[in-house]
């Protein structure tokens, strides 16, 4: 049970949140212009690093806001929390 620092509500138990996978995957500007391969990348391919990972969480049982987290998937340590639209912060 991670302790996730929601940028709006403060630290809360992981069970209050919904996980949203990799952050910074933008919906393509013009899907019709993409090849099937490019569209497949958008639909199905996400990074899966062992180490720091910028990911999305939503505080579904709280403020219901989406935000981003940099978490190390090897240790579960949270390095940074930031709002949607902000760039990924530099972390150690």
């Amino acid at each position, binding site marked *: *049970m*991670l*302790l996730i620092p929601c940028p709006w509500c403060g630290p809360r*138990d992981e069970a209050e949140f*919904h996980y*949203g996978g990799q952050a910074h995957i*933008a*919906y393509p500007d*013009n*899907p*019709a212009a*993409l090849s*099937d391969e490019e*569209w497949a990348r*958008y*639909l199905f391919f996400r990074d899966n690093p062992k180490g720091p990972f910028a990911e*999305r969480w*939503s505080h*579904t049982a709280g403020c*219901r*806001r*989406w935000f981003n987290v940099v978490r190390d998937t090897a*240790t*579960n*340590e949270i390095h940074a929390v930031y709002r*949607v*639209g902000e760039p990924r912060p530099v972390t150690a």
Partner: protein
Amino acid sequence: MSGQPYRREGATGKTLRFRFDGRDYEGLEGDTLASALLANGVRAVASSIKLGRPRGVYAAGCEEPNALVQIEEPFPEPMLTATTVELYDGLVATGLPGQGRLADRPDPARYDAVHAHCDVLVVGAGPAGIAAAGVAARAGARVILADERPAPGGSLLGTTETLDGRPGHEWAAAEVAALEALPEVRVLRRTSVIGHYDDNYVIAVERRTNHLGAAAPAHVARERVWRIRAKRVVLATGGHERFVAFAGNDLPGVMLAGAARTYVNHYRVLPGRRAVVFTTNDSAYAAALDLADAGVEIAAIADVRQAPGETWAARCAERGIELLTGHVVTAALGEGEVSSVRVAPRGDGQAREIPADLLLVSGGWTPVVHLFSQAGGTLRYDEGLGAFVPGEIRQAVEAAGFARGVTTLRGCLEDGAQAGRRALAAAGFAVPSETSVPAAEEEPAAAPAEHLWLVEAPGDDDYGAHFVDLQRDVTVADVLRAVGAGLSSVEHVKRYTTAGTAHDQGKTSGLLTSAVVAHALGVDVGELGTTTFRAPYTPVSFAALAGRDRGHLHDPIRVTAMHEWHVAHGARFENVGQWKRPWYYPRPGEDMEAAVLRECRAAREDVAAMDASTLGKIDVVGPDAAVFLDRLYTNMMSTLKVGSIRYGVMCRADGMVFDDGTVIRLADDRFLVTTTTGNAAAVLDWMEEWLQTEWPDLRVSCTSVTEQWATVALVGPRSREVLARLAPGLAVDNDSFPFMTWREAEVAGIPARICRISFSGELAYEINVSSWYGLALWEAVMASGEVTPYGTETMHVLRAEKGYPIVGQDTDGTVTPQDLGMEWIVSKKKADFIGKRSFARADTSRPDRKQLVGLLPEDPGVLLPEGAHLVETSSLPEPPVPTLGFVTSSYRSAALGRTFALALVSRGRERIGERLYAPVGAELVPVTVTSHVLYDPEGARRDG
């Protein structure tokens, strides 16, 4: 009854009666089952799992490897350690041969869970833990002190050590009572900390009424799970003594030296009359002397070292105890229990047999590092201690006292106090300038221990009774065989031999197993390492973890405002997600089929009503609401006029149908969206995700209003007439109130929004009122006595006759709108919407996709099972048989006067008119493929 022959003189307390293995005994209040059995001279408590050897009490705590018992009364509970079962009047237990037995009746006890937060969690109320808690608590920190035993004191409970001049256990009791009086301190007794997770999330289980037996009050939770989030954790978890591998080291009468000391001092029980002591270190001497002082004859002490501590040697000499230095025990001997002990000098020399009924063993002490390791800490091998001790850790956790290898009482107190100071600082409290710890007696200077794991046998074939894991009957011979088979990892040896996998999870044997493997491989145990420590530290009942989330509390039950009426009128219910929905309303003598045919007929021929309140309802509001909905739905929503309603489908980005429902335009910037009952939360999540993460520029907000509205669907050719009566102020004629529009009016005197939509194909209205008035509205609709209530089953039949799919029943996440015959709802005008790009993929545009069609069994009385498959041929070839598709919905239709089905069939629309076969049991049922719209294809009826 012989009155506890092994009870020490002067032991006092209330007498308790219990029964073990069919015999009646007495014990004293404060006993464990193990101490009470020892007091009665019961040596063999259980038998071993594989070899069936008798086994006795070996330890005095949760690390017990041998004395496994089954509780029979007051309620059956499988496999507990006799050393942790507190004795109570009326306890009935039996010794186990390896397997426990579950009760054959429901557990009447309650269980619950509590969340707790603290600045400092201290695990273990021994000297170090109490010292740490004291420092933190007196500085005002929120402290939780948890200990698995009924009383605080830890190691002090089993010794005769003094602190500030009084018995150590008295100091512990007084100090903990003083701390408990502080407002921010919580002391959890009988509470085992079983798991240490990320971000200092710690799980503990409190046994609240177990020790009361049949007198346990029914309203108090028997066990309680504590979910603790701590800023800082101090692990003062102490150590477990370990044994040495020698022949017969499993015989009843062999016991860990520290455990024997606890039985004598704490439980006032003599574990035997005449003892031999076998040790690798100084700690067993204190045990030997305490036993001697209590009247146990110490026949000899065999110390593997040439030079034990001088003070200890002198004390033995004072009491005339024979000290055999440089000796080992080569065998414990006896039939079913120890009757003599064979000792021999190390290397060459004459062995001798010493008659004894008790053999105390100390192979050294292992710090309890389970929680530290679970918390992600590394371990390092400490040569001096001959054990793994805590190393580095990322979390805000530290070990204190013996748990990190501090061996003296004075050292543990000081170490605990320091840990308390560091915890204070880390939790943001002012650290007091000084902290004091109670004065401990001077302890004899320690002589180094020698880490002997294994007493060598004459030959490799003679290790069959050198046990390393008592509970799994694993011997040195087994370990040697595993290594001989080519295994070199402790994990492999564990799996080959099963060592360490039993009830005790290797608490006394894990390190010994590693050491014997290392010995066999010729490597160092520190280098070889140990197996992983996994939660729980001690076994925890399923029921405790399930807590109160059982039965009706397993998952919330949602009901509509009209629920009471449905119950009162005999509705049968269907679970739809968390909702209870009326399924059908059988009248006396009706089965489901008859009831549904009647309800259908009422809807098609007369007037009927359904509680449609469970449909998801979302307010979508803001200047960009129309743009937003255009992106979500496959069809155009921005062109919808205020006052009108449009049906819509939404897809996931992969082009597969996700949900459907109606969109009502309430104002230019305001829509009400309905969703399927099961998907309401998912659709709201979906909307918020897109708005917040992709389109934050859109000025739109979404609010669930499912619970705020109650909805009655009024259906049938006479629905207009009934509505007109209920809403005299509303113009209900077709021109004033056309199909796919909504109006506001009072219905039965209740302000309502009425939508003229139809999921049945009939003339129909959905009347929405504040859910506070839901029941009143429903009762008003029903009051005339003309309106037939119908449930979900009838709703399903009516919509299927019209070919309207149900998302989740006629779709399964692999179906596109085109597959459903809904090309018309996929906008060609919009540049993009979610899912559009996917329709152009090779597979999604494949011509042989499964398409929704109707099926008419050739025998109109035959009802196809939903889930039946369809094949082309009238006889089945050998499998695998190619399937064309399957039946998604199948009903008896009152309107059609026959059975029919919907199905997803490959190239289905091309096959209309073809005959296919549905294998049902051993038969192949012929069916004809038709359009999926079977009733009123022109749509004349809904216009009334």
